[in-house]
């Protein structure tokens, strides 16, 4: 145990300090009953591990569910906000530009609204129909 001792410095203070530390820093004894408690913990250990594993799995599942729920709520709220915002912007734009546009195209406002809705509908249908094709093209390009 003592085969690799530090070379002791000849300085008196260093020697005195080394001696004092040897006396004062005694190794701590094991706490009373340590071995008995350790044996009991070892007996319980496999059960503890299964129990811990179950708790960890349950906790992970709870966290995943709550994250999913939070994400769903956030997405619903965002979608609703976007919908309201878009409707508001379209309403404003229509109120401001539609009379001018009807006058410029020499059309009735109701006709113009019908044409705009038809163009919008065709646009949405085309987007839905062509999106898979677009995705494939993008994948091919990338």
């Amino acid at each position: 145990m003592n085969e690799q001792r530090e070379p002791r410095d000849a300085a008196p203070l260093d020697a005195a300090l080394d001696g004092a530390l040897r006396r004062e820093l005694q190794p701590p004894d094991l706490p009373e009953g340590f071995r008995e408690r350790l044996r009991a913990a070892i007996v319980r250990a496999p059960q503890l591990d299964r129990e811990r594993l179950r708790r960890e799995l349950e906790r992970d599942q709870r966290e995943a569910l709550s994250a999913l729920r939070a994400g769903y709520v956030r997405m619903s709220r965002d979608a609703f906000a976007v919908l309201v915002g878009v409707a508001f912007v379209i309403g404003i734009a229509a109120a401001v530009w539609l009379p001018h546009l009807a006058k410029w195209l020499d059309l009735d406002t109701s006709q113009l609204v019908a044409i705009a809705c038809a163009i919008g509908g065709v646009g949405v249908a085309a987007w839905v129909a062509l999106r898979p094709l677009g995705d494939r093209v993008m994948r091919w390009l990338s």
Partner: protein
Amino acid sequence: MDGSAQQVSAARERDSDILALLAGGRQDQAFALVLERYERKVFRLCMAMLRDRDQAADAAQDSLVRIWQALGRFDARAALSTWIYTVTRNRCLTAIERRRDHDSLSDEAVASDVEARTAERGGAEADDRGELLREFVASLPERYRRPLLLYYYEGCAVDEVAGMLGVAENTVKTWLHRARALLQERLIAAGLGDPTLWLEELA
């Protein structure tokens, strides 16, 4: 063969009986030998790292339970002692991490506490000198305090301390040198008269 390779080889030879028992599938007997050889060392390492006796006992117990659970799968790629100390250190680091936000004092806080106590006492009585010296040790930065404690706990075996802390022997020697230098500085700064005489009167 360099120093660290010799150290690993010696450590492997020392625990060859445990490894032979493990190879023969006698895990219980192997663990009994592990306890006989390492139980106190594991506790001392926990004490040096955690400073608190109850927490050290918990950490030592937890480490030894983990060692028991994994002993059958120990593949002897590293020395057994290295593995045991690594498991223990990791357990202690986890405990330190957990309590960091609660009750742990920084090195500076401990040092200023010791200075305040020293000032309160003025000239320390002979009975208190040992306690004061231990407080000076407690006020050292962690990287110097741990090797210093383990060095004296383990009967001044530098190789054992290096194994426990997972560092090279030369690193331990450097830390010990700095720890003693810091202690000397603090003894002188504490105004305890002649520090050499003060230390000699501790006996």
